[in-house]
């Protein structure tokens, strides 16, 4: 009987394609918006995740996310180093000085000052130059997106000179840093120089980056640091997640995306539900004839579910294909770099669409179940 169900479904081309379009459009929108949302949220912690040399971030105890820093005292570094289980601890400065090119182009930047001696926190993914070149005096490394913003249309090239708070610096490397939440150029410099780029304050130490000794878990060490210094200590993953949570709680981004996702779900459900219900109603006479002939209710329900499932599966596959094509097309764009179709979105939307298919089938199943087979004689 399954082939009969599928023939019935596909014979009404207009409704069949309408149904598939509704499922596909809904799938595309859901996967697209969920992935973009997660990608943007992930950016809130991207500079944290880019630091692979350290496992623990130590900061003022009221710090909630990466952008919000209150300078620590220089002595805090020594206190962290004194905690049992710390393999090493180094300084990290974070500031937003304005960079200006000789041509006059300028932009606020995301400047990170890494430990002078170890260069822990320096970018490890380099497109041009070496991160070790930061040891040279007045040198900086800038990310590719920042370079393209400050030197539009110019090929990637080292040796460019910029001004950072009246300090002349030379570009010694171009990194492939993860995109930050705001589209500022990401600059890495040595700590001692980076603090000069920012207006002078009494304290300049933004973070202490620490690593646990072998045998001590980062989580345990973070707990010890908090206990002994009164500062806040988070593992890299925890701190990145803190940033996501902060933006989720304190910005309208989740609401905006949530509305789009809800609309996609509701429109998908309404359009596909209505189309499928109309399809079933228009085929009631056929279902009635089958019922009269002796096809059981159970079999008819399977036929209806199969019809909804096939339309849903085809629509889902097309929608996923559309979403994959979209992210493939935007993968290399500077503004959209790093935002990909997440497998979690693909899997999650599959579950959602299965729910939509179930809801869509529900009314039709009921209609077929209560259908009086004697109606075929009328």
């Amino acid at each position: 009987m399954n082939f009969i169900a599928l023939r019935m479904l596909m014979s009404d081309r207009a409704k069949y394609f309408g149904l598939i379009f509704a499922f596909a459009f809904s799938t595309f929108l859901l996967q697209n918006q969920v992935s973009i949302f997660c990608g943007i949220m992930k950016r809130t912690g991207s500079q944290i995740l880019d630091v692979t040399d350290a496992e623990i971030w130590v900061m003022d105890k009221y710090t909630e996310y990466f952008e919000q820093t209150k300078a620590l005292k220089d002595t805090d570094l020594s206190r962290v180093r004194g905690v049992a289980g710390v393999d090493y601890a180094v300084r990290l400065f974070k500031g937003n000085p304005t960079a200006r090119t000789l041509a006059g182009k300028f932009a606020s930047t995301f400047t990170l000052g890494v430990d002078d001696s170890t260069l822990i926190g320096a970018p490890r993914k380099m497109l041009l130059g070496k991160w070790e070149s930061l040891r040279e005096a007045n040198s900086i490394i800038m990310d590719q997106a920042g370079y393209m913003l400050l030197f539009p249309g110019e090929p990637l090239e080292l040796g460019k000179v910029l001004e950072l708070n009246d300090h002349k610096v030379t570009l010694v490397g171009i990194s492939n840093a993860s995109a930050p939440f705001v589209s500022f150029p990401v600059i890495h410099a040595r700590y001692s120089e980076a603090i000069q780029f920012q207006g002078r304050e009494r304290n300049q130490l933004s973070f202490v980056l620490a690593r646990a000794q072998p045998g001590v878990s980062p989580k345990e060490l973070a707990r010890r640091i908090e206990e002994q210094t009164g500062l806040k200590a988070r593992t890299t993953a925890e701190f990145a997640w803190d940033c996501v949570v902060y933006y989720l709680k304190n910005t309208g981004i989740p609401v905006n995306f949530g509305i789009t996702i809800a609309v996609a779900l509701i429109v998908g459900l309404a359009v596909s539900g209505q189309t499928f219900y109309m399809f079933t109603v228009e085929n009631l006479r056929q279902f009635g004839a089958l019922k009269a002939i002796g096809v059981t209710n159970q079999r008819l329900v399977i036929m209806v579910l199969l019809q909804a499932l096939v339309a849903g599966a085809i629509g889902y596959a097309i929608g996923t294909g559309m979403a994959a094509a979209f992210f493939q097309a935007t993968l290399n764009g500077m503004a959209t770099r790093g935002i990909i179709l997440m497998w979690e979105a693909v899997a999650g939307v599959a579950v959602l669409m299965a729910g939509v298919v179930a809801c869509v089938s529900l009314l039709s199943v009921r209609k077929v179940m209560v259908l009086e087979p004697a109606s075929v004689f009328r």
Partner: protein
Amino acid sequence: MKAPSSPDAVRCAAIRKHFGENDARVEVLRGVDFGARLGEMTFLVGPSGCGKTTLISVIAGLLDPTEGQLEVLGHAHAELKPADRVVFRRRNLGFVFQQYNLLPSLTAAENAAVPLIADGMKRSLAVKKATDLLGRLGLGNKANAMPKTLSGGQQQRVALARALVHEPRLIICDEPTAALDHKTGESVMELLATAAVAPERAVIVVTHDNRVFHYAHTIAHMNDGIVTHVENTPSRNSIAH
């Protein structure tokens, strides 16, 4: 679920059927006594709204009677569980509807094969069997045609093939000629009389069309929810036993 042999394919005694309750209650069958014999074509005739369709729906097991005794092919309706009734109907009954009720997305042969497929027969085998039957009914060259490309008479012949393909012992036809012109209606009735009527099978035909009454072995006249009288037509002989 093979039915025991009996000259009476259908026996209805004091069948009542009403719809709705209280003020909305409508009594459609008001104590019907009716019978149809194996090997015969029994016509059920009467004015619109007299209860013919309700009666065949009850006989087919599509509606439950409110009161009365019903026996179809030796099985008491009341003793069959609902699930068994569906299987019983699938294996023992064939239907010809006024509006054919063919599935527009299936070919003529596939339409005719539906009862076999519904009963679990492999699709290719069922379609082959249906194609052979269509050939015997004069539609051999239309087996792969879609219903919309067939004339009304051809569609009704496909419907007849669907009613016969699983060799049921009772065929119920609801106004089989109502949607056809006289000539086509005659040919369909002729086919019904020759192909459907068999010693181990009963055919019940509901019709308004008095131009085809001469095909009947027995005519039961209904009016206002009861069978008023039954006449045996002298022109045809029963082929039962």
